[in-house]
C-alpha cells in the first residue's frame, strides 16, 4: 500500500489489516498520560485542504501528532479549482519540501490520484469531490466492528443523498468487501444512474428497508438540493427519508445509528435520534483518529517495526 485513494482499490486483507492496526492504536494510546507514540518521529505529514473541513483536518492532524510526525498545514485556496496556484505546482512545491505524506481534501474528484503523478510521498485521500472518502468508511467499519462485533454478515442501510456522497461510495466498496449486506435507500433523483453492477440492494421506501438492519447510516442532505428539483421540499424529504423516533422504533434493538457529520438536525435525522444512545456519532469521531493513525502508520512505515 503506497497511497490510500479509494476503498475500492483495497484488498480485503489490506482493509482488515488497517482495522486491526486501528485497534492496536486505540489500545496503545488510550489511558496513557501522554497519548503519543514515536513511530513517525522525523517524518513530515502535510495537510492540503482545498475545502473547509475543520473536523477532518483536525482529526488527521491529531492522528499524525500522536504518532510524533511533524505536521504542516498547507494553506490552499478553498474557493475554486481554477483559481490560485495549480495543483501540479503545489505538488512540486510539496515534493521539494520533502513531504513524506500528503493528506488531501479537494472538491474535484480524482485530485488525489492526480497528485500521485507529481510527487513521491504517500497520498492520503481525505475526501475528493463526490468520489471517495476512504478513512471515513474505515472508521465507520471500525465503529461497526466495535458495536456490532463485526462487519461480515451484518446489514447496513445507507440513506439519503447517495449521488453526491463520497462517504456512501467508499462505504459501498469497503463494507461489501468485508462481507456486509449493503442497502442504498433514497429517492431515485439522489441515486446515481446505472449502479446495477454495485454490490448493493436499492430501495426507495425507507420504512420497508429498515427491516433487519444492523446499522443505519444517515447521509447529510443539503436543503438547497430542492432548488435543483432533487426533491420538492425539505419537509417532504424529511418525512420520506428522515430518521425520526417512529422509524427508530422499526429498527432491531441492537441496531446502531451512524452519521458521518456534520448533521442537519431535523432534516435527515431528528434531534432526539441523533442524541439517543443508539447513535454512534461522537464515537465515530473518536474512532476517526485511531483509523487515521493506523493508515498514516501503515503508509509511512510499510507496516514495519510493529
Amino acid at each position, binding site marked *: 500500500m503506497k497511497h490510500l485513494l479509494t476503498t475500492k482499490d483495497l484488498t480485503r486483507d489490506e482493509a482488515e489489516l488497517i482495522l486491526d492496526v486501528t485497534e492496536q492504536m486505540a489500545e496503545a494510546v488510550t489511558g496513557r498520560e501522554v497519548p503519543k507514540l514515536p513511530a513517525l518521529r522525523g517524518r513530515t505529514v502535510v495537510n492540503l485542504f482545498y475545502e473547509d473541513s475543520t473536523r477532518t483536518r483536525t482529526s488527521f492532524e491529531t492522528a499524525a501528532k500522536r504518532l510524533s510526525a511533524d505536521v504542516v498545514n498547507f494553506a490552499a485556496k478553498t474557493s475554486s479549482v481554477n483559481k490560485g496556484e495549480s*495543483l501540479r505546482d503545489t505538488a512540486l512545491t510539496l515534493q521539494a519540501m520533502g513531504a513524506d505524506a500528503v493528506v488531501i481534501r479537494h472538491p*474535484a474528484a480524482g485530485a488525489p490520484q*492526480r497528485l500521485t503523478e507529481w510527487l513521491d510521498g504517500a497520498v492520503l485521500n481525505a475526501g475528493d469531490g463526490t468520489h471517495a472518502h476512504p478513512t471515513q468508511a474505515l472508521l465507520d467499519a471500525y465503529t461497526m466492528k466495535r458495536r456490532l462485533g463485526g462487519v461480515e454478515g451484518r446489514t447496513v442501510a445507507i440513506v439519503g443523498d447517495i449521488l453526491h456522497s463520497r462517504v456512501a461510495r467508499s462505504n459501498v466498496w469497503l463494507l461489501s468487501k468485508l462481507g456486509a449486506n449493503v442497502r442504498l435507500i433514497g429517492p431515485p433523483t439522489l441515486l*446515481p*444512474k446505472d449502479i446495477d453492477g454495485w454490490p448493493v440492494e436499492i430501495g426507495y421506501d425507507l420504512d420497508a428497508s429498515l427491516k433487519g438492519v444492523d446499522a443505519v447510516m444517515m447521509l447529510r442532505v443539503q436543503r438547497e438540493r430542492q432548488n435543483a428539483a432533487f426533491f420538492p421540499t425539505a419537509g417532504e424529504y424529511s418525512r420520506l427519508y428522515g430518521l425520526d423516533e417512529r422509524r427508530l422504533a422499526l429498527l432491531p434493538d441492537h441496531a446502531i445509528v451512524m452519521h458521518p457529520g456534520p448533521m442537519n438536525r431535523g432534516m435527515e435525522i431528528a434531534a432526539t435520534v441523533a442524541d439517543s444512545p443508539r447513535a454512534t456519532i461522537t464515537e465515530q469521531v473518536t474512532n476517526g483518529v485511531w483509523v487515521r493513525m493506523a493508515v498514516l502508520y501503515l503508509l509511512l512505515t510499510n507496516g514495519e517495526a510493529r
Partner: protein
Amino acid sequence: MTDLLIKSADLIGRGRQDVLVRDGRVAEIGSIDAKGAETVDADGLVLLPGLVDLHTHLREPGREDAETVHTGTRAAAKGGYTAVCAMANSHPVADTAGVVEQVAALGRAAGYADVQPIGAVSVGLAGERLAEIGAMAHSAAKVRMFSDDGHCVSDPVLMRRALEYVKTFGGLVAQHAEEPRLTEGAQMNEGAVSAELGLPGWPAVAEEAIIARDVLLAEYTGARVHFCHVSTARSVDIIREAKARGAKVTAEVCPHHLLLTDEAARSYDPVYKVNPPLRREADVAVLRAALAEGVIDAVATDHAPHAPQDKQCEWAAARPGMLGLETALSISVLALGGPAGVDWDVLAERTSRTPARIAGLEAHGRDPRPGAEANFTLVDPAATWTVVPEGLASLSRNTPYAGMELPVTVQATFLRGRATVLNGAVLPNDSEEETTE
C-alpha cells in the same frame, strides 16, 4: 512550377497508375514517362483524395499558445488533410465578416491546407441574437456552414430562424447537440463509470433530445442540419430514421468516439476529457457500424488543442477536447476494419468526398481525373507508427493516443500539386521561407 509525376500509385478501384500533375491540376493518368517532372515513387501506396475536416479548432485568433492557423494546418497536412473547416469559437468569435476573412487569409498565408472558416450562428456564441450570417456568407471567405460549436444552439426559436435564414444561400447549421440544462456541471458520460468515479454525468439523452428536435426542425423548415460529433447509439437511430424520411440531415463522428470509451476516465487524466464525452463500448460499436454504412456521413476530428496548464490539472478544472488531425486517418482505418479489412473507397468517401460535399468545397474530395485539382494524400497501408506527443506537428500535446501503435502512415500530401508533406515529413513552403529570411 515543374510537373509532378506520382508513379504507380494505387488509385482506388482503378489499379496502379501514374498521375501527372501540371499547374496544380491532373494532366494525365495512365502509364506515363514524363521527362523533367519531379517524380514521387508511390509504389505500394494508396492515393486518396486529400482528407477534408469538417470540424477543426485552430485557436487563432485568441489562443495562439495552444495552436495557430499555421501550426494547425501543418498538423492537418501531416495527417493527410488538404482542407479544414475552422470552428468559430475563437477570441474574438468568428461572428463577423472581418474575423472569418482574417482566418481564411491566415490559412492562405500558411499554405498547408485550405482553411474554410465556419461562422458563428449567434453573436459571441451567446445563443441570443443571430450573427451577421449574410455578411459572412457574402464575404471573401464565402461561409456556408454556421455553428456555435462549443455551445448548442439550444433555443428552438433561434435554431428555427437560423435554419430558415441559411436557406437563402444554400447554407447549413452544424449543431453541437447538447441540451444545456441536462449537462450542467457535466464532466463525463453518465453511466456506470461516472457513478463510480463521482464525476457529474453527461447523459446521452442530452444529445439525443437536441438531435431529435433538430431533425424535426430541419424537416419543418426544409433546411440542412449537420450534426457535429455524434456520440451515442440512440443518436444514430434518430438520424437513420430521419434520413429514411428524406430529412436533409448529415452527421459526423470523431475518431475518439470510434475508439475510446468512458473507461479511460478512470485515470482521472483530463487528456481523456472531451465534449461530448467518451461513451460506452456499445456506442463505439454502433458508431463504427453507422460510419461503415453511411448513416454517419463523415469522420471529423474536433481537433481541439489545449495548452499544458489546461490539461495538467484536476479533471473538473481541465478544458475538454483532444488533438485529432494527425491521428484521424489511422483511427478511421481501424474503425473501418483495420488495414487489412478496410474498404478504401468507403474510407475516401467518409474522410474526403462526403465532407467536401457537405462543406461545399468543390475543389476537394475529388479523385484524380484530368482537369481536377491535385489535392491528394499518399498513404502507406502496410506501415505502422507510434504516437509520440513531442513528435506531433501541432503546437499542443493533448493526444489521447500517446504511446499507441496505429496502422497506416501518411507518406505525402499534395495541395494543388505542391507537396506539403513528403516522405512523412512536413515541408517548409515558399511563403514561409520568405517570411523567415
